[in-house]
């Protein structure tokens, strides 16, 4: 078969197109956000957490009852048009109580996790990065703190400071960072030997730049997963502390406390347990899902 010349056409090179930058110029964080947005579950979780936080602020104002208005004549009522989530044994409006509880629980969870992460990253980072005697000293100190049971810390704080939200957060701050510090130290020790860290040194990066621009971003995945686990843990621990009487004091309440008092009436009025339990579970689930999504989004190697 003959292929004649006139069947071909010379189109040349489009100079502009061949030089064009195909990929949009996104920064690392823009890119991470773009990847997170593609993850529908993570976005739904983020949305849910946002709604929960919003409701914790405005929820109690949506009904005309206060969380501590009791009406002993009323007793337990199932959810109805007036009391959207019903009333508890003292005739208190559950809707108001659930969102007041959300305030306490979410606040404690968030604060505990933030303090934990900050102290953990700083201490673990110092130990891992500088190594040697500093590392040994810090790690032995952590070992000693870990050996003391959490409950003893809490009781001591309650004795000195008294019970309340602040005491609980204080108790978390003293013990919570230990695990995070160990984790970060391990990660930094591992990363420190990688060649890109050596390379950064030869390229003139000082210690601060090395820590904040290279080491921390590369441990972020692990940190975020631990962080999202830490929030539910703090909420649960608060519930436990409230149960043994050293958490927030009635009539102030929290999700954990609502679930506890609901559990007592579980066989007669299961909704008293069910409502706070559903909120606790969904929030935990969302936080975990969001954590997973964030971890994936922050790793460019998983880029699609």
């Amino acid at each position, binding site marked *: 078969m003959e292929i004649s010349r006139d069947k071909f056409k010379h189109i040349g090179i489009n100079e502009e197109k061949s030089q064009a930058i195909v990929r949009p110029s*996104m920064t*690392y964080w823009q890119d991470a956000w773009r990847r997170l947005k593609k993850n529908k579950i993570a976005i739904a979780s983020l949305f849910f957490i946002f709604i929960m936080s919003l409701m914790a602020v405005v929820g109690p104002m949506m009904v005309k009852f206060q969380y501590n208005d009791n009406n002993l004549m009323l007793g337990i009522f199932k959810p109805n048009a007036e009391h959207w989530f019903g009333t508890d044994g003292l005739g208190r409006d559950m809707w108001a109580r659930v969102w007041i509880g959300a305030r306490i629980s979410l606040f404690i969870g968030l604060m505990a996790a933030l303090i934990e992460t900050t102290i953990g990253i700083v201490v673990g980072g110092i130990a891992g990065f500088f190594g040697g005697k500093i590392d040994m000293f810090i790690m032995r100190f952590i070992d000693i703190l870990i050996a003391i049971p959490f409950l003893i810390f809490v009781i001591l704080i309650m004795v000195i400071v008294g019970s309340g939200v602040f005491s609980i957060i204080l108790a978390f701050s003293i013990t919570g960072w230990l695990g995070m510090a160990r984790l970060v130290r391990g990660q930094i020790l591992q990363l420190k030997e990688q*060649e890109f860290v050596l390379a950064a040194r030869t390229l*003139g990066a000082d210690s601060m*730049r090395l820590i904040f621009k290279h080491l921390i971003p590369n441990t972020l995945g692990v940190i975020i997963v631990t962080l999202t686990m830490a929030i539910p843990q703090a909420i649960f621990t608060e519930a436990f502390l409230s149960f043994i009487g050293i958490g927030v004091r009635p009539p102030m309440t929290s999700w954990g406390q609502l679930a506890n008092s609901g559990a007592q009436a579980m066989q007669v009025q299961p909704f008293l347990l069910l409502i706070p339990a559903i909120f606790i579970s969904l929030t935990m689930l969302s936080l975990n899902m969001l954590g997973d999504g964030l971890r994936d989004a922050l790793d460019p190697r998983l880029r699609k």
Partner: protein
Amino acid sequence: MSFLEINDLKVHFPIRGGVLNTIKDHVYAVDGVSFSIDEGKTYGLIGESGSGKTTIGKAIVGLEEPTDGEILYYGQQVNKKRLRKKVNYNREVQMIFQDVLSSLDPKKRVRDIIAEPIRNYEKLTENQELEKILTLLNIVGMPPDALYKYPHEFSGGQRQRIGVSRAVAVNPKLIVADEPVSALDLSVQAQILNFLKMIQKDFNLSYLFISHDLGVVKHMCDYIYIMYRGRFVETGTREDIYNNPQHIYTKKLVAAIPEIDVENREALRRNRIKVEQEYSEKESLFYDQNGRVFDLVQLSDTHYVAIKNKEDLQDVENSIA
């Protein structure tokens, strides 16, 4: 004119042990080596793994603190971090790494990777910086759309080119190349090596080429230093080493270069056996009873060999003939 001089460099690592974690012994990774580096020349550091060649490289760029000895940059001591800062030494001496993927931060875009030295050493506006990065990418033959990709999206050869462009970004005088091609496949090796040669002319660069691949070193280097157990056994120009090896260890290395020469296969094999035999017979002339390499003895203007008595070389020569 040499700008960097290394005098009697020693790097010893302590071996700790016991209950109190005290120093029991030392590893003599680098044990007294001296050489100097001229502008625009390539130096090859050859040796088996564990012979201390990478440690020398790391000591020169400042990643390893020397135990003893001098590193002089235009006559200035640069042993300590403070001293290096004073003469802007770290900017002038850069390094290319063996493991290309792990030498690039996985969470940074190529743009940020190449920009790192520029941001550390130069104050440029964002546009100037971008322009410079694009020029660098162009020099190493990468398309501009590489800017916003991450290291894992490239092939081995491309990654090494990114590593090279990062090293040359601030116009250094010396690049320490630690086995820059040993992780790449052969066709890409040649490409990277030729490219290194090309930019050497453009930037008037010196290389300290660390390798165990004699073929690569022959292709690249003007001067060659053969290392064994932390010391130089033989140093000289490329011709000295490849055509007239004197040390038994060098002879063994040169004999081990694979050659495709089917007709002389037997002869080459016999030669290798002979070299091996000589090695075991003459060991005491070249190493002391602890296996330490002797000091270097001058043979010609450029050629040095580590031997106890220079006269013994005659014997070696004669025994071969």
